[in-house]
Structures are given as structure tokens and as C-alpha cells.
């Protein structure tokens, strides 16, 4: 192991920032906390992204590892203990605090995301994370957003103590199935990962009940669902500002107020999209996750036994999973509607919503002036915001296609699935093949990237476009 002595701050930040970048979560959302008039910082429930790196991912939090020394040998991870040539570094709590505060004052970041390699033992690692966060909150009076990893295997009391200091906690599920985990991360197992998740969930629930003594947990759940349908505000809590030691205000701040999240690596193991999404549905339903992140597998360890696609990480697949994730969280879709055992993977060419609509043409076209909110949400090209606007605006006026466009409806997708005052935008056939070929021609980037699809010119519009199981587009006359 390469451990250099007397490394300066610049080298450490470089190594430990670089090592943390494969963690996906960078959101700073979920808590609304006004400044207290003295301490540094506040939080906005919608979150702010302060920069975007060269790969287009946002940099909202100072995402670093406390140390990249690690006793585990997860095969997908650049910091695994068998890699002798990885330079190793460890921050002191003071250095982390200084970086966070100084970056925050210059408006570079929205807060801190602290993760860590497992140094010596989970207990020692979690203790170091706790000390750092404790110092940041109580010595530097930092009031901004903090997200930390709960280290699986650390004592529950330590996780609980840390949870009262931070806004969000996460435990990475790493791989969708226990099988994959055994294979790639021999030191981790499903049970030790799920234990802290369950603990965080239970403490949060107890905490929620303490917050709202007059409303039963049933009402609370309804409120959660309503809020979950609002874009941008992921059930943000309004919290009053308090003074003094952070622990003494734990009753106000609460336990992990912005909730917990997790992430899965996609494409390192052979699971289907259906399996992945089923796991993620379970995490949302049974663990009340705020977010599940999907991370396209990059073979950073250059392990030849793991997939090493020449086309790079499976980014399109990752994109489809996120689309389905949003359909599940904001559009009231169930995964079994989108995928099934027989059709376990998403369509490469079409987004999951269009794909679903094409398979359920019997439910279309939908009349804009009359359809209820849930039905509008299911129309491709209509999002949560535009559906809400339509429902509000049609109370006072008869809408036309111009209005819809201004409200944010994407007409090039929606026009096949809607009527407005009984009329289509222009006459189109509500037929699967016709709509599919039009949708693909008009916008689909995937098709353009894959290359043109040639076919014989025809006087009659009778060609059929079908997608085979392997995602190949076949056009026949």
C-alpha cells in the first residue's frame, strides 16, 4: 500500500475527491432550513447544483472520502485493498472542516458529502466520520447540508448519534442481488447492508411521529405521497432555526431529515432491468428511500473477469432506469406495468412511457379537457407540471394546442395520444406501427447514433416497424 507521508492538502483532496467520484448521489435537496442569523449556511428544499463537471454530472456537495485506505476487496472499486498502486491518503477532521467551510463561503458547494474507505474496522471508520461531522456542526457552526455514509457493520448507537447531526444518510446496496454481491464484494453481505437501512428508516419514523403528535402515522403517509408528486420538492420539511449545540436541537432538526438514499451498480452483473427495478421498487416501498441511484458500471480496476464494454459504460441503460424510476415515483406507475418476466429489459429506442403507451393504445386518445389528472400523467409528452397546469387552466377556459405548447406539453410526442376539444392536432392514425415509426423518425437520438435504418420506398404507408427482443429495428413491407 502506498501511503505517502506529509502530503499537502492539494494532493489529499485530489486523491480523495477522485476516489469519491463514483458515488452518484450529489443532491442537496429535501430540507428547508433558514439561516439562524449567526451560523454559516442554510438549506433549500429544492437543492442547488453549484457546478457541472466535464461529464455533465452536478457538483453540489464537496464529495470526498475521509480515507481511501480500505480493508475490503470489492472488485469493482478502485480503492480495494489488493490494489497496491493506488495512492492512499487520509484527511484529518480539521482538514475536512476547513475545506468545507472555505468552499462554502465562496459559494462553490452546497455542503459536504462524506464517505470513507473502511480503515481498520467499520467501528473506527464510523467513529471518524462522526467526529468530523460533530466538529463541523459544533465547532465551526456549519449550518449547510451534510450527507454521510452509514458504514455497514458499525454499532447502531454510533449511526444514531451521527444521524442527528446530518441531513441525509445513505448505505449503498452496491449490487441488485445478493448473488452479485457475494461474487464481487466478498466482504459485504446483503444482511449487513440492510440492517443500517432498516435502522435509519425506523428512527426516522419514530422521529416523524414525535414531530407531529396530533397526526397519526396514516395521515403522515398521505402527506408524503402528495408531496412526492410535486416536482422539485422531495417532501421538504420546514424547520425553524435554533441556537446552541447541534445535539441540543436534535428534537427540532430531527433524525436524518432529508431521508436516506442508496445506489446500485448497473451492468457489472447480469441482472435484467426488471430485476433491478423490482429491487428498487421494494426499496421505495419497504425502506422509504428518498432516492435510489443507478450507476453505469465503469471498469476502473481493469478486472478482466468483469464486463469491459468497448462502447463505454452502459449510459443509455442507466438513463432508461432513471426514466422508469421517475415514472414510479412521480407518475404512479408500477414496475409490473412497464416490464415483465417475458419482457425483462427496456426498449433501447423508446423511453419507457412511450413504450408503455404504445402497448396500451386502447386507452388513447385522451381528451385534454376531460381526462382526470392520473390519466393525463400517463400521456407521453405530458409531465407532472404540465398536467397540473392543464387541470388548473381548463377550469376557466377552453384550451387549444397553442396553450398546451406554452404550458410545456411536448406536442411532438403527445399529439398521437391526445385530443383537444375532440380534435387531434392534425389527423394521425392511432396505430402502433405508424406512431412508432413517426416517433423514431422525429426525435430519437438513439436511432441516429446507431445509424440510419434503410428501407424500400413505398407508395403506400404500410411498412411495419417492429423491435425484436434484442432491440434491433426491423422494417418490413
Amino acid at each position, binding site marked *: 500500500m502506498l501511503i505517502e507521508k506529509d502530503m499537502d492538502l492539494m494532493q489529499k483532496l485530489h486523491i480523495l475527491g477522485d476516489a469519491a467520484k463514483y458515488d452518484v448521489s450529489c443532491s442537496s435537496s429535501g430540507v428547508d432550513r433558514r439561516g439562524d442569523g449567526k451560523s454559516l449556511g442554510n438549506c433549500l428544499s429544492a437543492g442547488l447544483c453549484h457546478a457541472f463537471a466535464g461529464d455533465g454530472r452536478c457538483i453540489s456537495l464537496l464529495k470526498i472520502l475521509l480515507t481511501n485506505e480500505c480493508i475490503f476487496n470489492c472488485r469493482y472499486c478502485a480503492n480495494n485493498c489488493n490494489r497496491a498502486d493506488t495512492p492512499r491518503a487520509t484527511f484529518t477532521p480539521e482538514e475536512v472542516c476547513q475545506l468545507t467551510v472555505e468552499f462554502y463561503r465562496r*459559494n462553490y458547494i452546497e455542503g459536504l458529502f462524506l464517505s470513507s474507505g473502511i480503515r481498520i474496522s467499520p467501528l473506527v471508520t464510523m467513529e471518524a466520520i462522526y467526529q468530523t461531522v460533530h466538529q463541523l456542526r459544533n465547532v465551526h457552526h456549519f449550518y449547510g447540508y451534510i450527507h454521510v455514509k452509514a458504514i455497514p457493520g458499525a454499532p447502531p448507537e454510533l449511526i444514531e448519534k451521527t444521524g442527528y447531526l446530518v441531513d441525509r444518510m445513505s448505505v449503498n446496496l452496491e449490487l441488485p442481488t445478493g448473488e452479485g454481491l457475494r461474487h464481487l464484494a466478498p466482504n459485504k453481505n446483503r444482511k449487513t447492508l440492510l440492517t443500517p437501512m432498516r435502522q435509519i428508516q425506523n428512527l426516522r419514523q419514530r422521529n416523524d411521529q414525535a414531530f407531529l403528535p396530533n397526526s397519526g402515522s396514516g395521515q403522515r403517509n398521505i402527506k408524503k405521497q402528495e408531496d412526492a408528486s410535486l416536482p422539485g420538492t422531495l417532501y421538504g420539511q420546514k424547520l425553524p432555526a435554533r441556537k446552541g449545540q447541534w445535539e441540543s436541537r436534535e428534537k427540532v432538526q430531527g433524525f436524518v431529515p432529508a431521508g436516506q438514499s442508496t445506489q446500485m451498480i448497473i451492468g457489472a452483473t447480469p441482472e435484467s432491468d426488471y430485476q433491478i427495478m423490482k429491487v428498487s421498487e421494494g426499496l421505495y416501498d419497504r425502506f422509504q428511500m428518498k432516492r435510489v441511484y443507478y450507476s453505469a458500471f465503469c471498469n476502473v480496476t481493469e478486472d478482466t473477469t468483469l464486463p469491459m464494454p468497448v462502447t463505454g459504460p452502459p449510459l443509455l441503460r442507466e438513463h432508461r432506469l432513471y426514466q422508469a424510476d421517475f415514472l414510479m415515483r412521480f407518475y404512479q406507475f408500477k414496475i409490473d406495468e412497464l416490464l415483465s418476466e417475458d419482457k425483462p429489459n427496456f426498449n433501447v429506442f423508446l423511453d419507457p412511457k412511450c413504450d408503455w403507451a404504445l402497448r396500451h393504445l386502447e386507452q388513447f386518445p385522451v381528451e385534454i379537457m376531460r381526462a382526470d389528472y392520473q390519466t393525463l400523467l400517463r400521456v407521453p409528452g405530458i409531465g407532472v407540471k404540465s398536467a397540473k*397546469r392543464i387541470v388548473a387552466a381548463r*377550469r376557466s377556459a377552453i384550451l387549444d394546442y397553442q396553450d398546451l405548447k406554452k404550458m410545456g406539453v411536448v406536442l411532438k410526442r403527445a399529439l398521437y395520444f391526445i385530443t383537444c376539444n375532440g380534435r387531434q392536432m392534425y389527423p394521425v392514425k392511432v396505430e402502433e406501427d405508424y406512431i412508432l415509426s413517426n416517433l423514431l423518425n422525429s426525435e430519437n437520438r438513439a436511432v441516429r447514433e446507431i445509424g440510419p435504418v434503410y428501407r424500400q420506398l413505398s407508395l403506400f404507408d404500410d411498412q411495419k416497424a417492429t423491435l425484436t427482443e434484442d432491440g434491433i429495428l426491423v422494417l418490413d413491407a
Partner: protein
Amino acid sequence: MKIFVCEDSLEGIFTGVYDAWAAAGPHTEKRLITGDTWNMELFAEYVTVLPDAKKAEKVIRTLKSRLGYEAYEQLCYAAMSDAIDKADAIYHTIVTAFSMRDSKRVFQNMHDPAVMRCFALGRTVGGEATHHLEFIRFCELENGVLFARCTPKNRITLVLAEHFSDRFPSENFIILNATHHEAVLHAAGEHTYILCDSEALLQEQPGAYSETEELFQDLWKDYFEAMTIEDRRNEKLQRQLFPKRYWKDSVELKDKA
């Protein structure tokens, strides 16, 4: 047609609303414009409106109580826009609101062109304001003052002042809006901030950096570069989310701007 020429400020526009409302004739025959560059029209009567704090105050009070705070805020955002038709859109939105049974629902009435326009203006301004909350960068000067410079299209100084006064209560900071020649001055421990005409600030250099400033800038630049996953490089997406016009006032991408 009666055209009311207002000063380009919240006070000016709301005074214009007051005067136009009080003037004789149907609302469709009245129009509001702001600023001093516009095309003259034949057969129109021009009325110059002098900003009047009392009249504006009355309008604001009425708007808050009749339209509700959210709609009022939306109108204020529209008023910060750099569009020339904003005052007219605001006026006719208010007219529409008062003709509705429930004026609080005015922004649901998206079929109305003025309301739609106000909504669109508010959305643009809000978007730019959020971008500025995210992308402006402070540097620490020798005397410990934090200084940031920005060049927004819309007059969003007030939004920045609100946000950063709440966020940095114990810092001395200056945010200079170089487009509109305004600055936010915030003194540590004070809850107030001042917007002033910043011609003088524009002339002077903000002053030398503090000792550690360059270190932290370099740390940030290095960290920013290290965060890119090379396998996923996608500069088009980066430009889409972090538009190039913000790069020149940033630290990490200043050299590429």
C-alpha cells in the same frame, strides 16, 4: 390608446399600474411601457408616470391581499425581467385577476395571454436567479470581505441579496451586478443590506486577494477537474446544464470561457 411610460423599477411599474387603473377608458385601450427606448406610435397619447412610493405601496398592499403572496411574488419576478413588454403584461394580468371571482387563482388562468406572458417572464427570471445562486463565486479580499461579480440579464439583485444574507449572516460581503450597476452590501451581523448605484465600485478594482484565497481557488479547480469521470465525458451536457455565459464569472471554467 393611452400609453403610460413608467420608470424601470418595481416602484415605477406599480405607480404606472395605479395611474393606468385610475385613468378613464376601457383597459384594452391602455398600455404600459418601461424604460426610455421604444418606438413611438401614431394616434397614441403618451403619459409619463413619475414613480410615487405612496401609490406603489397601495398597489402592493392590494395585490398582496387580493391576489395572495404567491401571485404577488410572481409579478415581482416578472417585473425584474429585461423584456420591454413586462409592465403591460403585469398590468393586464392584474386586470384579469380583478375580473375573476377568485383573484387568487389568476396564475391558473393560463389561457389569458397577459397571464401566460407574466408566467413565462417570471419563470425565465426565476431560472436565471436560481442559476446565479448556484454559479456566482465569492473571493476573499485582503480585509476579509467576500466579493462576487455577476452579469445577469435580468435585474435579480434583490433575490441574490435575500439568499446570501440568510446564508452568510456573519460575513461581510459584496455582490456586484455589473449589468445593472447595482451592488449588495452586507455587513456581518446585520440583517439589512443596501442596494446602491455602484458606478464607483465598477471603476475601482475590488482589491487584492487575501493570503489563502489563491490556495482555495487552486484547490477548487483541481477538485473540479478530478471529479470528471473520463469514461462518461459529455461536454455538451455540461454546457447545457452550466451555460457558457456563466463561465467567465466562475473560478473553475474561467480559463475556458
